[in-house]
């Protein structure tokens, strides 16, 4: 059985700041996807993945919710606006930001996942 990847590890490794409610239960992460084009993410990201993107408008939460993603990481030191945070809370989508750019965030996550045999 593959060991589940620990959220604390992801949060530390990707230097994440959480924007969702503290009480929100974080779902398991089975993989990851990186992209900024909504239709591409809709078509190609898989349920249970963590999504790294520079987009931060409300549609991000809609896409994450539709696909069933485990969470969203907004990269490049960009912070989600209040309406996005509100929607994430309403939809129960874990929402983070990181000072890392998408390349470095994805690279670090890739390493974490590969150690767990998930990539």
């Amino acid at each position, binding site marked *: 059985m593959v060991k589940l990847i620990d959220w604390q590890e992801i949060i530390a490794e990707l230097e994440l700041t959480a924007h969702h409610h503290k009480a929100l239960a974080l779902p398991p992460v089975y993989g990851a996807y990186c992209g900024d*084009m909504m239709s591409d993410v*809709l078509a190609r990201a898989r349920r249970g993945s963590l999504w790294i993107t*520079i987009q931060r*408008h409300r*549609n991000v939460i809609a*896409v994450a919710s539709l696909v069933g993603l485990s969470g969203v990481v907004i990269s490049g030191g960009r912070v989600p606006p209040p309406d996005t945070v509100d929607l994430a809370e309403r939809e129960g989508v874990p929402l983070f930001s990181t000072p890392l750019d998408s390349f470095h965030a994805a690279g670090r996550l890739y390493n974490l996942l590969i150690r767990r045999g998930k990539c």
Partner: protein
Amino acid sequence: MLEELAHHILDVARNSLEAGATRVEIVVEEDPAGDLLRFSVVDNGSGIPPYVQRHLTNPFFTTKSGKKVGLGLPFLQAAVERCGGNLEIKSEVGRGTKVTATFPYYCWDRPPLGDMPRTIVSLLAGNGHLNLCYRHIFQGQSFKMDTAEIRSRLKGIPLDAPEVLLWLRQYLEENLDILFGGGDHEVARRAG
């Protein structure tokens, strides 16, 4: 980064100012039922000569005189194309330019409209003499702001005085809220 259509509108309108426009008209039309979002920026600037018009959406084109063409229009063109929309630029030297971008309303890759009050206020900051007309149509209802009308009520206070701009931003936010909420249109008129 141009992540909102409001940023694109600001970019296009700044081109108008650089072209010496004294009057700019911005129209935003949202028609969710008709799956349409369209905006246009019309100015009375110097216009774009035909030889430049051919290159407007070419990112590697720049005029040597220092006049900015930049990446603004190529990026807008790309945003429009991602959604199967349409970008039209009509210009006549000595008369002005009209830029119209049309998007499907429901397209995942369409940037959100974003903060229009901020765009309007940013345009006016430092350009207190600009005649700016902003019309926003939502589901057939419309809201209109005309700097000429506001100026006549200011009785000499410059339109781009910080407190006026702060007021204007709030005024626009309130009126757009009313417009989007489908509220009583009369309220919007009275607030002006």
